[in-house]
């Protein structure tokens, strides 16, 4: 088995050596083209399109969390907070919720006559990213002096605080009879994205939604890839590996960690804002602790610290959660004569998948380059060490 793997790896290396240097760029371009034409292969309002859109939005969140947990090694169990804040940014800035206000910016002709704050979706997206980045810094500050599990506890509490705030926000007045959130009733009738020339999006034609979230994914992916191979990305990994050594080598701890929190949160907020408009309602009940774990599972199943892993993990769990279980396999137990539907045991299935994953492939679907090096180069290093110790070394005098 291991020989077979070694052989495969050899072939892979040989193939990679023969590919021209532009091959990775060509690959990226073709993937983007496939991504753009994909919706034409499916009916514009099919369940599969719907699942694809949600899966891509999950992948964006997974990429955001991967910056915090994967790159910087800060275990964040309250990531749902940024989903909530992103969605509320949309609720606040793209609906009639603040009915006393009259603010309109680049919105559809219909929305521009309505009371409330109505901003163009792109503006809301930017606002959501900024609000969440700020919140990321706020949650980062108390965790700066903490390590490992203790960071997880503080972030978990932060996620819960935001959740409770969302539920009870309907009792928090912000003036003029308006409240902070609508609690479990939800902020409804949020604006659909509108772009001049395209018009308002609607849920009968899912293709524009798909292209929108696909574009967001590409932007987030680009930023992730650039950051990974940069001065900042290296600093994160150094902090993750050894904090004391990193600060002694001149890496500013506070700034570097807070940047990780802020960037990870910003991506979560962008995805959250998209979900807000896509689900057409911002409801406090959406922001459960379980969602934080769900996103974390995507990062881990994909491969901690791996960008492509985060994308694949997000897509995989997104499809399983929103397509495979409810649409394809839901009646499977009935076929075997059981009296339940698969959606009822959803979490059991995820738990099972996680356990299987950890047993068979703990490094994730697409492990990070470093982790792969650690696994494959380990044997070579031991060999080298053997040679070193047996080599001509001066004996003790």
């Amino acid at each position: 088995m291991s020989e077979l793997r070694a052989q495969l790896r050899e072939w892979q290396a040989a193939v990679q050596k023969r590919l021209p240097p532009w091959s990775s760029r060509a690959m990226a371009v073709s993937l983007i083209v496939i991504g753009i034409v994909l919706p034409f292969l499916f009916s514009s309002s099919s369940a599969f399109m719907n699942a694809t859109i949600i899966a891509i939005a999950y992948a964006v969140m997974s990429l955001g969390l991967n910056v915090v947990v994967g790159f910087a090694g800060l275990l964040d169990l309250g990531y749902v907070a940024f989903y909530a804040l992103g969605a509320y940014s949309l609720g606040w800035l793209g609906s009639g919720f603040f009915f006393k206000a009259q603010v309109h910016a680049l919105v559809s002709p219909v929305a521009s006559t309505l009371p409330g704050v109505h901003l163009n979706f792109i503006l809301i997206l930017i606002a959501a990213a900024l609000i969440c980045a700020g919140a990321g810094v706020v949650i980062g500050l108390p965790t700066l002096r903490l390590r490992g599990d203790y960071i997880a506890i503080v972030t978990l509490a932060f996620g819960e605080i935001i959740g409770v705030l969302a539920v009870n926000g309907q009792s928090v007045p912000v003036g003029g009879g308006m409240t902070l959130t609508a609690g479990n009733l939800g902020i409804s009738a949020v604006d659909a994205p509108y772009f001049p020339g395209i018009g308002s999006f609607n849920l009968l034609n899912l293709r524009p939604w798909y292209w929108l979230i696909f574009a967001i994914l590409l932007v987030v992916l680009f930023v992730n890839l650039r950051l990974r191979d940069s001065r900042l990305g290296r600093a994160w990994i150094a902090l993750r590996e050894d904090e004391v050594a990193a600060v002694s080598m001149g890496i500013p701890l506070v700034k570097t960690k807070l940047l990780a929190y802020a960037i990870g949160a910003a991506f979560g907020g962008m995805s959250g804002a998209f979900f807000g408009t896509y689900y057409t309602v911002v409801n406090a009940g959406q922001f459960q602790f379980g969602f934080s774990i769900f996103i974390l599972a995507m990062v881990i199943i994909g491969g901690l610290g791996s960008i492509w892993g985060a994308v694949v993990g997000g897509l995989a769990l997104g499809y399983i959660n929103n397509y495979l279980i409810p649409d394809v396999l839901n009646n499977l137990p009935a076929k075997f004569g059981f009296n339940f539907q698969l959606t009822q045991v959803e979490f059991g299935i995820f738990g099972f998948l996680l356990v299987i994953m950890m047993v068979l492939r703990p490094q994730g679907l697409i492990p990070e380059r470093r982790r792969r090096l650690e696994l494959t180069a380990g044997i070579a290093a031991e060999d080298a060490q053997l040679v070193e110790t047996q080599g001509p070394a001066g004996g003790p005098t």
Partner: protein
Amino acid sequence: MSPTETPPPAPPAVALSVLRAEHVTKQFGGLVAVNDVSFDIPQHSIVSLIGPNGAGKTTLFNMLTGLYRPTQGRILLGERDITRARPDVITSYGVARTFQNIRLFGAMTAVENVMIGHHTQMRAGLFGSILRPPWVRREELQTRERARELLAYVGLREPAFDRLASQLPYGDQRRVELARALASQPTLLLLDEPTAGMNPNESQALTEFMRALRDELKLTILLIEHDMKVVMGVSERVTVLDYGKKIAEGEPAEVRADPGVIEAYLGKRAS
């Protein structure tokens, strides 16, 4: 290490002090780890800090590099007061260190480790990293190039450059750590037991390498060391700590003859 033949260097005529500690004390609860220690390090010298285990040498190191804040006293780097400065700021002022138990970034390659050392000299921030304009690209390339040069300088062989630090043999890890410290372009280099785990030949090579560092890179070196052969061979001055207190200071020969030092190391003679 590249052994270079150098004549025994004469101490500079005017000994400017690079670093000066004034009445530095560090208390951990009831334990006084470092007690009212003052000393200074003349420019382009090699100064050793010795003492029995638990004497407070590493605690003193940690205060000089900003990892601990002194309970009392003052630390001056040149004219600058760095008593309360952050470690990364102190590094950017030109102080670099290695650790007693090697602390490399295990999941990074040797080259990347050294590149981290160069971070204080780089300018790319968040937006520079994302947009990657030509000057950032150039900065990255130059940093990588410099890291390779430094690794070659400390004697690492080419095939080891792109291996993960955790997978390098012990001796190479020591070399990488030294290169990483040098990458921040320090004026003062603090080495915490650099010869730990080395055989006498390697220690000898390192001794010569330290002299080369001082003469070629115009460095000042502060050394914690247990190997007396190294200490006596390389240092111009020796400071001895025992139970957090400075018990002796001076030239190696003086210190070796000091009855207090002998007592600290060997115990009191029964009378």
